[in-house]
């Protein structure tokens, strides 16, 4: 009986805290994305500036670690039985990648453009304990170019 009560408490706390944290994070992401709108980050290696005009080139990177909450893990566990899109994890990956990109842009400071941007994801802390609450890390890196004139 106690196990059931603890389980219900965990799942409720997981849902409420997880939902609030996600909403707040998305608000902050959108706000900062707007602020960085004039700093393009592209996957191309070359955006056509002549080499002599490039004042500085610097490697920039940003990484973010997002943890799943108890409710999302439960939902994904149920999905594991039936199969299908694991919708509860989608927002985690989305948040981690966008946060990583934003931090990379932040590191670039006053650069004109970030070229050759790559994003990678990895799980950390997976199976750190038996409950298997995993975290997701996204790292974004690229080359920030500052152009003269």
């Amino acid at each position, binding site marked *: *009986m106690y*196990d*059931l009560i*603890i*389980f219900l408490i965990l799942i409720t706390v997981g*849902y409420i805290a997880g939902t609030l944290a996600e909403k707040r994070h998305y608000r902050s992401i*959108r706000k900062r*994305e*707007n602020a960085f*709108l*004039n700093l*393009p980050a592209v996957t191309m290696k070359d*955006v*056509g500036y002549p080499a002599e005009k490039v004042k500085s080139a610097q490697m920039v990177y940003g990484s973010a670690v997002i943890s799943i909450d108890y*409710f*999302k893990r*439960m*939902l994904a566990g*149920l*999905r594991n*039985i*039936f199969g299908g*899109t694991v*919708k*509860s994890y*989608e*927002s985690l*990956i*989305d948040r981690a990648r966008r946060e990583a990109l934003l931090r990379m842009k932040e590191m670039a400071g006053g650069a004109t453009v970030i070229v050759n941007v790559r994003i990678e994801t990895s799980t950390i802390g997976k199976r750190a304990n038996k409950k298997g609450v995993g975290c997701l890390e996204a790292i974004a890196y690229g080359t920030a170019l500052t152009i003269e004139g």
Partner: protein
Amino acid sequence: MKYTPRQTESNVNVTPTSPIREFFVLMGGLLGIVILIYILLGLAVNLIVPHISVDLEKKMAAPFIRSMYAQDADTIRQHYVQALIDDLQVRCATLPYHFQVHVRKAPTINALALPGGHIIVFTGLLDKVTSENELVFVLAHEMGHYAHRDHLRGLGRAVVFMTISAFLFGPESGASRMVARGLSMTEMSFSRSQETQADEFALETLNCAYGHVAGTTDFFEKIPREQDPGRFGHYFSSHPENRQRISHLLNISRDRSFKLADRKPLPEAIKRSKDSSTGKPSPSAYP
């Protein structure tokens, strides 16, 4: 190439969804499947039980029963109940079991039939019975469950349920432990028809043992007051309404013209030991 700064309005990477709804749909589906498996395997257990020999039953029960000897208490009453059962076994209800009585200290007014011929009698029952006939009826009722192999059916379903839970949540998880704990109650709950059959078996046995059926319904009259099935209906809810059982037993007694006579009182030693329970039995008592 011109760069036009713009913020995307929609997010293609996140499916707009209601996680709560998804949770309930998946959980409901899972529960439905578990219930279906439980019912199907329960039916399978009913088919298999008649084909399980008593020897096989004893072998299967052995690992679980071993720990029970350690908990045995109350030697005087244990020997008395054992003697009653042995007597019934020899004279009236010869079943292919070697019955072993275990007395447990608990206020429950009941006895349980475990696989392998192990009958658990709670001290609550021994404290409440007023005559030997009454006690013999309860014991014969449990023997009736053995005669119809009801105890295996109940246990079979319990094992099925535990297997499902271990499979879904892992053997060490809280859910599995919860299920295992709950089973000590549910595994021994029988259906109405099983109880009625065991009652009829007990009535025949009582008549055979004493030549009359006095004391048959004494036990039931004690239950409603102390363990009302309406209010605490977790265990006794599986037993048919006690009133129905009483009237059914009286009807049969009348139909078969069973006689009534004076009840045989409990031996003085047993009455005295109600308040003082002795310690553990000597190991030599159990081969």
